[in-house]
């Protein structure tokens, strides 16, 4: 039995045959394929891509793919710049491909279209999962319990130095007309691609070791896919667990990323973050000034009111006191009048008493004198009546013995009897006495 020698082909024959076969089999067909972009190299407008598929973190398939320059331009014209962020390593994509085998370049998938909504759906799915997980772990609202100082001057800045977002922030912060005296501690790190995630987490943890008022995470403009790192669970968890209040300034135009949702505050752009910081201080200053003005106005008003009130009281007091004084003065005048009247009355009383007494004295003394005069007069008359000479003149005589009044007739005989008459004295001898018969 003879052994038939195998048919020998040239490689070209084989690859041409394969090429023809592939072309006949898949040439006009297109397929929608889900895959992850593991490598992307841009060259002369073309995207050279390595597509992979994996199960449980193990790559199960790997194949090269290409987007021709004109195809990429067409997709970009239709979908916008977002395609740039979708065609990035690590992203999962839904792509329409043609299978092409070229005897020189081998097997390749020609990417002819990209389903943007699939990539976006992946973003949304990641967002959803991260939110659910953080909520389940009670971390989601952590930042909302942290006090965000109104005056945040010591700023921790997590950003990629030199990027436009960083420059916008620093320029706005240092060249505004409101407040510029900020102290910025910068933590330089990547903010693009999956590699940025561990750097951002490390920067957040490091920043928490500093004495800062606030921690800013900045990322300039980017597409939904670009910003998808800010939906990462570990990064968002680090934000939740930050003791410093975190403000995100992630430049996006439409939907929030989870980092925005968990941060203490989120602002739409880096410039807006800077504005928020100095405006907060400016607003505080302005409020303080307004409050001061309001307080001053209020206190001035109150002072004025009190002054008016005081004036009224002063006037009232003056009127009341004047009235009281007048009343008291009238009373005093009354008392004075009363005292004067009483005094006059008392004095008149005394004067009257004196007058009466004096008049009495005068009257009584005169009476007394007159009485004495009368007594004297009557006595004089009596004397006159009793005058012996008056008796002698009327013819009577006065007889005496030894110049004594005759009081007894005894022993008179023989004695000389003296008889005085108006004409002369008669002396005679007593010879006989005859007693009166009773």
């Amino acid at each position, binding site marked *: 039995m003879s052994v038939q020698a195998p048919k020998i082909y040239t490689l070209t024959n084989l690859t041409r045959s394969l090429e023809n076969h592939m072309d006949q089999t898949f040439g006009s067909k297109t397929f929608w394929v889900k895959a992850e972009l593991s490598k992307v190299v841009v060259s002369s407008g073309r995207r050279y891509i390595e597509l992979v598929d994996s199960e449980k973190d193990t790559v199960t398939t790997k194949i090269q793919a290409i987007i021709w320059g004109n195809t990429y331009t067409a997709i970009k014209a239709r979908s916008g710049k977002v395609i740039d962020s979708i065609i990035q390593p690590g992203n999962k994509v839904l792509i329409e491909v043609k299978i092409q085998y070229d005897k020189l370049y081998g097997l390749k998938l020609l990417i002819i279209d990209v389903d943007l909504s699939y990539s976006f759906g992946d973003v949304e799915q990641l967002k959803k999962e991260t939110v659910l997980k953080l909520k389940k772990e009670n971390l989601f609202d952590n930042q909302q319990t942290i006090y965000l100082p109104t005056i945040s001057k010591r700023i921790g800045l997590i950003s990629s130095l030199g990027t436009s977002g960083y420059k916008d922030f620093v320029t706005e912060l240092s060249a505004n007309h409101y407040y510029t005296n900020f102290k910025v501690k910068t933590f330089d790190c990547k903010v693009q691609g999956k590699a940025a995630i561990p750097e951002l987490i490390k920067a957040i943890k490091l920043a928490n070791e500093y004495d800062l008022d606030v921690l800013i995470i900045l990322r300039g403009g980017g597409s939904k896919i670009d910003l998808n790192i800010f939906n990462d669970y570990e990064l968002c968890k680090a934000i939740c667990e930050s003791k410093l209040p975190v403000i995100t300034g992630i430049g996006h135009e439409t939907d929030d990323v989870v980092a925005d949702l968990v941060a203490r505050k989120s602002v739409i752009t880096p410039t807006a973050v800077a504005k928020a910081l100095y405006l907060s201080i400016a607003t505080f200053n302005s409020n303080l000034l307004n409050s001061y003005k309001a307080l001053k106005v209020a206190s001035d008003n109150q002072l004025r009111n009190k002054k008016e009130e005081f004036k009224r009281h002063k006037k009232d007091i003056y009127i009341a006191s004047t009235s009281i004084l007048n009343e008291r003065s009238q009373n005093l005048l009354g008392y004075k009048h009363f005292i*004067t009247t009483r005094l*006059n009355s008392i004095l008149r009383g005394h004067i009257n008493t*004196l007058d009466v*007494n004096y008049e*009495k*004295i005068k009257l*009584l*003394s005169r009476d007394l*004198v007159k009485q004495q005069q009368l007594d004297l007069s009557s006595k004089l008359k009596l004397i006159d009546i009793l005058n012996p000479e008056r008796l002698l003149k009327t013819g009577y005589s006065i007889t005496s013995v030894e110049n004594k009044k005759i009081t007894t007739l005894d022993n008179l005989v023989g004695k000389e009897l003296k008889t005085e008459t108006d004409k002369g004295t008669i002396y005679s001898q007593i010879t006989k006495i005859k007693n009166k018969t009773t």
Partner: protein
Amino acid sequence: MTSIPKDMKYEDALAKIEDIVGELEQKEVSIDELIKRVDFAKQLVDFCQDKLTKTEKEIEKIIQDK
């Protein structure tokens, strides 16, 4: 003649006057004493009137001053 002591009080003077009036009313005064009594009474009355006039003026002055 009896003269008024320097430290004589108005009330005492008035009482003295009333005593003299009483004596005169009772006619207890002899003629010899009468002149003395009346003279003393006149002195007492003048004293009292003087006292009253001074008191009145003093009070008037006090009231006017106030």
